[in-house]
């Protein structure tokens, strides 16, 4: 039985439809990340699960129980808010135990639970402080503590790390992952940060304009994005899209202005229905590198001469913006390899992980 089932959920504000029929099933102990650009409906989806907003159509089931019309308090969920929403007038202890107190847990038990959670999150020394006396990271921990204390069926995280600075965000991300592994909790996590999504999720739900674009494991989403939107949204810098024509079962042509380039097709990719037609080739920046010895001569690899427009040293690798006809391509090369700006240099295209999208529908082939 699914821990959380979202069945054909629709939501409208007046004539604007925010959710257009979302279906998601989440298993017990699963970490699901909802991701999408702002305005895609992910926060509305989250609030609907929490019961903070009502839905227009469809059903929401938690642990098999229909909670579509239940109050938030009757859904057995806990939520961590982007702004933390700690009660400013209460101490950390008060914040964590408030939910338990409201649910009439006896005081000794409550105290034990607060201690347990505080220990888990290493905030024992902060228990008597007020939220205003805490740093951002500490507030974040307290907000998580408040959610953990009740041990609900489902945890909802609404962009919980977006108010932290970069370093703290990475730390807390790892901490959330560890907590999830340790406690085996069911988590729905909303974010617009694709690194968070990739690193945390068991499965990612990519949303756009109130529609679910793809629901799959992070690797699946990265390697086989359902359409060009998902492909462009996940991954930084984004996947390169190139208009190409499929020549035969093992090669394609890039029509870049006057020049034409040939590239091999990935093996086992069935494009037989598209021979002679235009499609969109999607290739990740890390698959376009400087020529490397160990790949030379492989059937799925080709070397093209491209003009370098810009280089960005990232430390671990160097991002290179190159020109292919009227298109610009992001490539990722080894920092020890140098390329001259405005000069043509050789780049190796590894087509083994290339994907193709229908030119009209932009859906994965």
């Amino acid at each position, binding site marked *: 039985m699914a821990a959380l089932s979202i069945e054909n959920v629709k939501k409208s504000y007046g004539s604007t439809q925010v959710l257009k029929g979302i279906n998601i099933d989440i298993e017990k102990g699963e970490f699901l990340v909802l991701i999408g650009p702002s305005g895609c409906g992910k926060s509305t989806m989250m*609030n609907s699960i*929490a*019961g*903070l907003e009502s839905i227009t159509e469809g059903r929401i089931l938690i642990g098999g129980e229909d909670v579509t019309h239940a*109050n*938030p*308090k009757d859904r057995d*969920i*806990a*939520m961590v*808010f*982007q*702004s*933390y*929403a*700690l*009660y*400013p*007038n209460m101490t950390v202890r008060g914040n964590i135990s*408030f*939910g338990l107190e*409201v*649910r009439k847990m006896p005081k000794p038990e409550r105290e034990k639970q607060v201690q347990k959670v505080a220990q888990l999150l290493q905030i024992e020394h902060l228990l008597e402080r*007020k*939220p*205003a*006396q*805490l740093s951002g990271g500490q*507030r974040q921990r307290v907000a998580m503590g*408040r959610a953990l204390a*009740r041990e609900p069926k489902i945890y909802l995280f609404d962009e919980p790390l977006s108010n932290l600075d970069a370093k703290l965000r990475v730390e807390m991300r790892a901490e959330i992952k560890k907590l999830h592994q340790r406690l085996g909790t069911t988590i729905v996590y909303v974010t617009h940060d694709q690194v968070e999504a990739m690193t945390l999720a068991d499965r990612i739900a990519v949303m756009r304009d109130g529609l679910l674009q793809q629901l799959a494991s992070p690797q699946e989403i990265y390697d086989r994005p359902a359409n060009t939107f998902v492909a462009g949204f996940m991954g930084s810098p984004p996947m390169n899209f190139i208009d190409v024509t499929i020549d035969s079962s093992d090669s394609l042509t890039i029509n870049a202005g006057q020049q034409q380039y040939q590239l091999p097709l990935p093996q086992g990719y069935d494009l037989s229905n598209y021979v002679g037609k235009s499609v969109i080739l999607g290739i990740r920046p890390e698959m376009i590198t400087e020529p490397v010895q160990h790949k030379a001569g492989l059937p799925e690899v080709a070397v093209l001469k491209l003009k370098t427009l810009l280089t960005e040293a990232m430390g671990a690798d160097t991002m290179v913006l190159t020109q292919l006809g009227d298109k610009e391509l992001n490539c990722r090369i080894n920092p020890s390899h140098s390329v001259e700006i405005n000069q043509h240099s050789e780049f190796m295209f590894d087509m083994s992980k290339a994907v193709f999208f229908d030119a009209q529908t932009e859906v994965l082939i």
Partner: protein
Amino acid sequence: MKQSYNLNINADATKNLSLLDSVKNKANRYLQQRSILQHLLRIVLYVILLTMAFIYLAPLLVMVMNSLKDVEEIRNGSLLALPQDPSLAAWSKAWGSACTGSTCEGIAPFFINSFKIVLPAVAISTILGALNGYVLSMWRFKGSDLFFGLLLFGCFIPFQVVLIPMAMTLGWLGLASSASGLILVHVIYGMAFTTLFFRNYYVGLPRELVSAAKIDGAGFFLIFWRIILPLSPPIIVVTVIWQFTQIWNDFLFGVVFSGADNLPVTVALNNLVNTSFGGKEYNVDMAAALLAALPTIVVYVFAGKYFVRGLSAGAVKGA
């Protein structure tokens, strides 16, 4: 660009140093001129402020001075002279034995009347305003903005307009000429203001606080009591001062709705001033007026700084 500039400085350091000095001198002179101008402006500012304060306080000063004189002194001398032989006789007469119409018990009994009306009216209108504001900011419903807009009309309707309908309503309710009736009138009239105050304050609080508390399992009143009210002292102080001043100072509703047994002090003051046997006792009039104004002054002196703070409050740290 930047690099070549740096090189230049190194190449001709001495020249650049002297250049730097002359720039410094110019800057200093400019700053000096500026600070003299600023001083002058500051002085002008204070002169204006002090003048305005004096103009504003002069009537109070005249009242205090004359309340300490005896009637003869006021009649003979100028109104503006300092009292030759200050005494509190006028004050005690105003408080305990001056005639207000047919009775001669001073304004003391009416003082009590006023408190009997003002305290419940302030308390009830503040509580209702807080609840209204809480609903209109945190539990919005369809049409709640329209509702709020209509409620605000209450702030702009002059007292005189509602006198007759209010009198009829009180008659139907059987509350005509009673203290409860007058309290009801003040509560209704004040609610528009108190709701406005609380609603605008609560709009500044993060709504996620309420969401979090809902998920924690708390209901409407528990959230209000445990989360929202503890954040409200600044706006409670503002509202209480405002309501206290308004209701204490009210004359029109008091004279119309209170009935003979519950006249508030403002009405009594009017009666006192208008009741004269022989000559006018200006000293008693002024002492009575000062006494009648005392509670609002006291409230402002003790809670004034919270008033100013509350008006500019709103942001909650650490929420």
